[in-house]
C-alpha cells in the first residue's frame, strides 16, 4: 500500500485536523467524540441537518458542512459507521431549537447507530427525525437483504434539504422532502480497481487486469456482476439502463414517529422515470478516476437520457461520494420537480460544494 498517510490508525483524525486548519471560516471540528460542524452553529430557529457514516468517502460528508447544506457530519473510522455518542454530541452542538434531521445511508451499521442516537436524543429532549437513503439499484432481491444501499442520492438530498432548512422549512417538512428526494433518486456504481483500506493495507478485493465489477458498493461491496472490461459507452449504457429499467422498488423502513414516540414501519415505493421527466444527472468518481473520464461517461449518459425522452436540467460531475482510491464511477439520476430545482440552485457554501455565494 502506498498512500499519503502517517499511521493508518491516525488517518481519520489527521485528515480532520487538516480540514480544520484549512477551513476555519466554514467549519469547526470536535475530536472526542468526532464531528465536524458549521462554524456558525447553532443557527437559531433553523432545522439542523446532520449526516455521517464511515470515513473514506470524502468529500462526503465533512466537505458538505456549511451554509445551505449540513450543520454537522459525524465521521466514523474508515468504512465503519460512526457511533451514537458522536451523533448525539453533534445534535446538541447544532440544535437551533427547530429540531434535527439525521440523514442516514442504509447500511446495517449506520442504521443501528443512528437509531440508538435518535433514542438517546429523544430521551434528552431533542427533537430528531431520521430519514434513510436507499437508492442503489445494484441491490436486487432486497427483500432478502438489508435493502438497497445508500449512495449518490445522499449528496443530492443533503444539498436540497440543506437549502430547505436554510429557507425555514419545518422539521417535518425537511424530513418529508428528504424522503421524497430519496424516492426519486436512483444510483449504480462500478469499479475498475479495488480500494485499499489504510488499516488493512491490501486491496479489499481482487480484480484481474481486464476485469471490472458492475454494481459495486462504496465500501467495495461486490456488485451484480464481474465482467470483462468494456468501453466507457458500454459501461455507461449498462449502468444507465439498470437505473431506467428498474421496476418500482417497494420496501418497509423504520422511521421515528415523534408523536407516537416510537419506531414505526413505513412502506415506501419508488416511482419509475417517465418520458418528459426532468432529471439531475450526477456522474461521480469513486476517487481514483479523473474528471476527463467522467465527462466521457456523461457524454453517453446524456445521449441515452435524450433517447428516452428524459431531460437533464441539472448535473453534478466529479468526486463527491468516493471509496478511497478506488477507480470507477457511479451514476445517480434524480427526478426533479420545481421545488427541488429551486432548492438545488439555492446558495451553498461548503468546502466542496459551493455556488451563488
Amino acid at each position, binding site marked *: 500500500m502506498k498512500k499519503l498517510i502517517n499511521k493508518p490508525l491516525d488517518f481519520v483524525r489527521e485528515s480532520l485536523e487538516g480540514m480544520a486548519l484549512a477551513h476555519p471560516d466554514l467549519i469547526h471540528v470536535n475530536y472526542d*467524540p468526532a464531528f465536524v460542524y458549521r462554524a456558525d452553529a447553532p443557527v437559531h430557529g433553523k432545522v439542523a441537518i446532520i449526516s455521517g457514516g*464511515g470515513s473514506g468517502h470524502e468529500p462526503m460528508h465533512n466537505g458538505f458542512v456549511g451554509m445551505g447544506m449540513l450543520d454537522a457530519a459525524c465521521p*466514523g*473510522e*474508515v*468504512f*465503519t*459507521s*460512526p*457511533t*451514537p*455518542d*458522536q451523533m448525539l454530541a453533534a445534535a446538541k452542538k447544532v440544535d437551533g431549537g427547530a429540531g434535527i434531521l439525521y440523514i442516514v445511508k442504509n*447500511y*446495517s*451499521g449506520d442504521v*443501528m*447507530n443512528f*437509531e*440508538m442516537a435518535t433514542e438517546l436524543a429523544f430521551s434528552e429532549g431533542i427533537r430528531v427525525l431520521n430519514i434513510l437513503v436507499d437508492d442503489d439499484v445494484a*441491490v*436486487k*432481491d432486497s427483500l*432478502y*437483504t*438489508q435493502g438497497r*444501499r445508500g449512495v449518490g442520492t445522499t449528496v443530492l438530498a443533503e444539498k436540497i434539504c440543506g437549502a430547505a432548512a436554510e429557507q425555514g422549512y419545518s422539521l417535518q417538512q425537511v424530513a418529508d422532502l428528504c424522503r421524497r428526494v430519496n424516492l426519486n433518486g436512483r444510483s449504480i456504481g462500478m469499479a475498475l480497481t479495488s480500494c485499499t*483500506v489504510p*488499516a*488493512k493495507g491490501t486491496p*479489499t*478485493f481482487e480484480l484481474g487486469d481486464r476485469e471490472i465489477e458492475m454494481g459495486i*458498493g462504496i*465500501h*467495495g*461491496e*461486490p456488485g451484480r456482476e464481474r465482467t470483462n472490461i468494456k468501453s466507457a459507452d458500454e459501461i455507461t449504457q449498462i449502468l444507465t439502463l439498470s437505473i431506467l429499467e428498474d421496476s418500482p422498488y417497494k420496501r418497509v423502513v423504520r422511521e421515528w414517529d415523534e408523536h407516537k414516540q416510537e419506531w414505526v414501519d413505513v412502506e415506501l415505493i419508488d416511482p419509475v422515470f417517465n418520458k418528459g421527466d426532468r432529471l439531475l444527472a450526477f456522474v461521480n468518481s469513486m476517487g481514483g478516476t479523473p474528471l476527463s473520464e467522467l465527462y466521457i461517461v456523461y457524454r453517453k449518459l446524456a445521449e441515452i437520457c435524450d433517447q428516452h425522452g428524459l431531460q437533464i436540467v441539472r448535473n453534478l460531475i466529479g468526486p463527491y461520494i468516493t471509496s478511497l482510491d478506488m477507480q470507477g464511477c457511479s451514476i445517480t439520476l434524480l427526478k426533479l420537480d420545481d421545488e427541488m430545482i429551486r432548492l438545488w440552485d439555492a446558495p451553498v457554501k461548503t468546502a466542496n460544494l459551493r455556488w451563488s455565494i
Partner: protein
Amino acid sequence: MRKEQILQWLQTFTDEIERHKDYLTELDAAIGDADHGINMDRGFKKVMSQLPTVADKDIGSILKTVSMTLISSVGGASGPLYGTFFLRASTAVGLKQELTAEDMRGMLQAGLDGVLVRGKAQIGDKTMVDVLSPAVAAFDLAITEGKQIQEAMQQAVASAQEGMKNTIPMLAKKGRASYLGERSVGHQDPGATSCYLMLKSLLASLC
C-alpha cells in the same frame, strides 16, 4: 459466577480478539468490508482501559461500562449489536456481585433479545444471531435440566461452535454480506465467529 470471573471473561475475550484480529478481518474481507477484527479489537482494548475505574463496582455497572464503551468506540454493525447485548445484560443482572445459574440465564437471554430487536435478524440470516441464539437455548435447556453453570456453558459453547460452522453454507440476509447474494455462500460469518469467541471466553473464565 463471581465478579472476578466476569472480569476474567472480558480479559480473555479481549485477548482472543487480539489473537484472532487478522482472522476476523479476513473473514470480513471475504463477505464484508474487512474491518470486523479491527473494530472488535479497537472496542475491547478501549473496554480494558476503562474497566479499572469500575472494577470494584457491581456486575451490572461493569457490563454497562462495557456496553457504553463498545457503543462509543466500535461503530459499524457490531458496535450497536455488542453494545446492546451488554446493555441488556447489564440491566438484567443489576447490582449483583455474583450470578446464579438463573441470573446467567436471564443475562444471556436479555442480551440475545437486545441483539434481535436492534438488528432484526432471524436465525439463518448468517449473523451473530446464528451463534447466540442456539447457544442461549442450549444454556437455557441445560439449566432447566439442572446442570451446573460450567456444564451448561460447555453445551452452550458446543452449540455456538456448531452455529458458527452452520453459517458457512448460509446465504446472508442481513448486514453487508447480504449484498453478495449467492456469493456469500461458503464463507463463515465474522460476527458469528467473534460471538463464538465471546462464549468460549466466558466458559474459560468459569474453569
